[in-house]
């Protein structure tokens, strides 16, 4: 059963206004920018964004007015520091909630991971020792103080935080390769992708390339997502640019710097978005705007293939 859709069809069919959407779960790698840009083109509204860190994708969605609130540990431009739409939305006004500032549920990275893992495991919470003494859990309904039912080696029942399960309406991830049913290979760092996929009600899988099922089945340990959890598969080459996709293209550091320089005011951001998001139809036109030379400069210069692994018997 093929689940292949175009990006615009996948976003139109499977993301509704008001949804909670988990994005950027592999941290600074394989951020699904192409999917995020389609959310902006389709003027999705009232979204809750979920992710540990987002690099600049959350900033773009906030600036475009798609966002109601954010559940995250860090929002900014990893290489450059702050991101301006996020700051303006928090400090002045959120374009997605006119007249109001952006509501942010502050978590730590581990708390985001635990919340998604609780969702993935089908339990209402997971316990942790993190953030004790921090202001993050204060007045924050994602945390609840609990006492361990078991005594430690000193006979003490320790105080812990329970982190509330997070169940995204939609999780969007980008990986290297997938078959048409959504069985997907990914390599490099995973961040909280595995939990984010298992926790979600729907999964939109973007892949650099869609490959025959036999390629995926040749290495079941490389499979990070089984197809039965996937709602839609989108072939989106370069769809994670400017973030890196190991084995396909490196990080476009200059793009992050240019974004930082070009989005210092709300007006500047709109110009930037008109160029890179609204001014292109899809990731193919986006790549055209990048230019062949820029794309080529990011491509793999030296291959480094994994050692042979034999599943035979």
């Amino acid at each position, binding site marked *: 059963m093929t689940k292949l859709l175009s990006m615009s069809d996948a976003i139109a069919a499977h993301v509704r206004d008001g949804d909670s959407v988990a994005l950027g779960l592999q941290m600074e790698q394989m951020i699904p920018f192409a999917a995020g840009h389609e959310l902006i083109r389709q003027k999705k509204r009232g979204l809750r964004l979920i992710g540990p860190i987002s690099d600049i994708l959350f900033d773009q969605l906030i600036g475009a007015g798609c966002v109601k609130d954010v559940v995250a540990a860090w929002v900014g431009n*990893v290489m450059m520091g*702050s991101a301006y739409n996020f700051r303006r939305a928090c400090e002045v006004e959120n374009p997605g909630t006119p007249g109001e500032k952006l509501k*942010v549920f502050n978590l730590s990275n581990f708390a985001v991971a635990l919340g998604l893992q609780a969702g993935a495991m089908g339990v209402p919470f997971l316990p942790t020792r993190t953030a004790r*003494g921090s202001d993050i859990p204060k007045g924050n309904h994602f945390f609840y103080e609990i006492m361990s039912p078991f005594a430690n080696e000193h006979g003490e029942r320790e105080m812990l935080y329970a982190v509330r399960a997070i169940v995204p309406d939609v999780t969007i991830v980008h990986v290297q390769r997938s078959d048409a049913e959504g069985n997907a290979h990914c390599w490099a*760092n995973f961040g909280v992708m595995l939990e984010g996929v298992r926790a979600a009600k729907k999964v939109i899988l973007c892949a650099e390339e869609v490959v025959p099922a036999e390629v995926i089945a040749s290495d079941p340990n490389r499979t990070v997502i089984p197809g039965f959890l996937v709602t839609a598969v989108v072939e989106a080459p370069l769809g994670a640019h400017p973030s890196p996709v190991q084995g396909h293209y490196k990080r476009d550091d200059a793009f992050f710097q240019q974004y930082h320089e070009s989005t210092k005011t709300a007006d500047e951001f709109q110009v930037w978005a008109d160029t890179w998001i609204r001014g292109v139809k899809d990731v193919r036109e986006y790549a055209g705007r990048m230019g062949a030379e820029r794309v080529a400069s990011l491509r793999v210069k030296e291959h480094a293939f994994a050692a042979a692994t034999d599943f035979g018997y």
Partner: protein
Amino acid sequence: MTLSSNPSQRTKTAGFTLGELMVAAAAREIKDGEVVFVGMRLPLIAFVVAKRTHAPNAVGLFENGVIRATPSPELIYTMADPPNIKGATQCLDMIGVMSLLQSGRVNLGFLGAAEVDRYGNLNSTQVEVREHGQDARATAGVDAGSTKTIRLPGSGGACDIASLAHRFVAMIEHSRHRLPERVSYITSPGYGNGRGWRKKVGLPRGGPSAVITTKALLRFGEDREAFLASHHPGVTVEEVVANTGWKLKVADDVLETPSPSGEELAVIRDYDKKGFWTS
């Protein structure tokens, strides 16, 4: 994710930059064989320096799930840059590395912040400032004025590292509003309000062992209050104290922060070839 304060004041001293001095100081905090939550920017380079000089068996952890026993072969801007993946010891997930942290397997973590206070608590979430840009707390009681909240990127993994590593080292620009008596928001717990606080609130271990600023190196006494352990070359003790938001204690045997060695400088310059982080 860790050093959100980019040292903007560059003090060129004899043959090395301030960034290089701070990197060398950070590198010396890593002991051989230790497991270190590395972070980006200056601490990343400190890890490279430590590995190539006195701590060849140190292991680096990154919160995205990467574990490296060798430094990445070239400079990286984020922990997920392809050179940090290729040749890694292990690529796993965040729950995996955070579990190692929570179970007490991580000796040391490096953190940046917008504010560090007297007891080593860190703030990287939000800062209250006077409208004309002054830190509200630094002038508290003097002029209520109107304040506003500056929103910072947030914790990332900083709260987790500060909570769960056996010790952590903070790196920050040295000024009165960066080093207030009390941070306006505890993102990452240090020693709270002093000795015994971490145990009382339920933290299993840890706390800051040093704060490396653009002017000095602070350590923490038995009372868990920061004190001046060494001032950087060309900076006086008085200048450090005057630029700290509380009455900073000074060690009896206060030293000058050792300059980077030739070997350390060679590693730094070989790694950060263009001086992106250390110039």
